[in-house]
């Protein structure tokens, strides 16, 4: 069958491709011919810049505020985006007032652990759901789907009680546990494994590889893309989370960054420079990460939306 299609396509191939390329070229010329109206292009870029100012401007203003020294008026009009005498004093001061670096370290610990548990747990479960046949597979799938439908906000009090019973309230483990293997991630991994061709694993089975070897030597390396998506969203989810750590943490020494910022805001609300410095510390790592890995961020949105 494959030879048939090949022979059919064979002779016609290059000619057709040539034709298509010419078509596309013509289309492009036509497009640019039609769309070149300069005013439209100018309008488009003007709009883009306006939206850019709206979406990124607030971050830049915060950055600017955090760099302004005590001598500079941050309430001045007209507002000055560029600090007259930029200084890092506010960052040092914020670290004096609250242990902001400890908070960052706590956040990092939780986020890193969350990445690890989600990647391992979700790919293991996803592989079993996608590639193994056993009694109860459907039931296991239903469990994950149902868990995905329960909004975290509506079970948060019960989760808090569970943590109290486990004596894990006010610990970082308590912050980590409830989300450490997301049902949605399990389903994402299951999808990724299901889309792999069977043949390679079959060949490995014939060669005597057991389930574990087939999983981590053959299947897992083929779904790195989805795994990266899971990892990134696990990191971001843990780093940005607010409601759950707010409920479970009570002792300042265990605060994560978001809770620390909330505390900073509540205690030193009138010192905008300090709050600004704190927020920049919290947001910068994620912006850097996003700049390096945006492909996966966007892919994650697509996959998540289809599932959720």
């Amino acid at each position, binding site marked *: 069958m494959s030879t048939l299609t090949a022979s059919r396509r064979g002779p016609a191939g290059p000619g057709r491709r040539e034709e298509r390329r010419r078509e596309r070229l013509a289309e492009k010329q036509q497009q640019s011919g039609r769309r070149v109206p300069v005013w439209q292009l100018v309008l488009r870029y003007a709009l883009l810049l306006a939206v850019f100012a709206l*979406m990124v401007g607030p971050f830049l203003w915060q950055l600017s505020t955090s760099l302004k020294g005590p001598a500079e008026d941050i309430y001045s009009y007209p507002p000055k985006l560029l600090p007259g005498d930029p200084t890092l004093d506010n960052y040092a001061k914020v670290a004096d007032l609250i242990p902001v670096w400890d908070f960052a370290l706590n956040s990092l610990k939780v986020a890193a652990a969350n990445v690890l548990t989600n990647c*391992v747990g979700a790919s293991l*479960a996803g592989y079993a759901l996608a590639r193994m046949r056993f009694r109860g597979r459907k039931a296991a799938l239903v469990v994950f789907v149902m868990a995905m439908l329960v909004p975290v906000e509506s079970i948060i*009090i019960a989760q808090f009680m569970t943590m109290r019973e486990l004596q894990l309230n006010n610990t970082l483990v308590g912050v980590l546990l409830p989300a450490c293997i997301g049902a949605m991630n399990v389903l994402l991994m299951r999808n990724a494994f299901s889309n792999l061709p069977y043949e390679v694993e079959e060949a490995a089975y014939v060669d005597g590889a057991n389930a574990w070897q087939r999983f981590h030597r053959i299947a897992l390396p083929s779904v790195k893309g989805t795994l990266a998506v899971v990892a990134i969203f696990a990191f*971001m989810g843990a780093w*940005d989370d607010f409601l759950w750590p707010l409920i479970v943490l009570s002792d300042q020494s265990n605060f994560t960054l978001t809770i620390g910022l909330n505390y900073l805001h509540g205690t030193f609300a009138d010192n905008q420079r300090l709050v600004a410095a704190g927020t920049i510390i919290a947001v910068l790592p994620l912006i850097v990460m996003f700049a390096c890995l945006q492909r996966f961020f966007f892919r994650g949105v697509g996959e998540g939306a289809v599932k959720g």
Partner: protein
Amino acid sequence: MTAMTKGSGNGPVGKTGPAAAPPAEPTAKAAPSSLSSPSAPDPKRRGRAVRTHLPSSPWLFLAPGLLVVGGFSLYPFVSTVLNSFTDKRTLIDGQWVGGANYQELIHDEMFWIGLRNSALYVLGVVPLLVILPLLLALLVQRHLPGITFFRSAFYTPVVASVVVVGLIWVWLLDDRGLVNSVLGAVGLGTVPFLSDQWLLLLSAMMVTVWKGLGYYMIIYLAALTNVPRELHEACAVDGAGAVRRFFTVTVPAVRSTMVLVGALSSVSAFKVFSEVYLMAGDGGGPGGADTTLVMLVQRVGTGLSGRVGYASAISVVVFVITLGLMLLVLRANRKEDS
């Protein structure tokens, strides 16, 4: 190769019995394409015929996931429902009180304020989050030089924590902040964004929209690539302007995505907590007038004197309404389909 696997797959079907055999599926003969589909019946049969793993392996693979999801998602859900019928407190085991918590809800003014604010949030945020990201996606859809930069820039607020975003806007909307100093210069005076009950709720909504724009923009971008260009061109040839084409070509083509965005955004809008909490403070604004339902859950149910039973009853209401919202949106979609 294809023929070989095919044969070995077809053979044992009889053994698995008629119950497992799906309705006759001649299309499965197109082996290569059916292999890539997760629900293809063919590979399933093959797997069952030749057991390729120990009977316990799947459960070992599933154990961590099932444990976490069961222990921290499904079990808390069941215990939330059960607790809602008791007068349990953080430090005191409760008694069964039947529907008393729910009866109390009906007479609790704070509950109605929370319900109103959460509902208003859905009404205010969802239409904007369905329409604005679509327009934004159209703006960044065409491959102009530098467009990837703009796309990423518009996504930045999604990446930032809601706490960061909230605090940035608290500073911008401060009585002496940037927005008010500009408004003051224009002669509009100081607008009490963060102290007036309604303006505060409105400001929080704007922050939610601002933070969500980029996320839904990416969803729409994926949907827009499926809109056939020929349709646009045919319409343009027929003399339809950009606005007309938007309503006759783009909107019908992305309608199912709009429903999806509507469902996602309405569920998350109803559960709003952080934006309002940060901008209004844990008291929920002047006299608690900006409290949302989830804020109420957090305030009532936590701490050493937390009323777990009562907070659970509010949680159940939150759950039922979010589920209802989701069903409502999906049903609206189905009705339009038929």
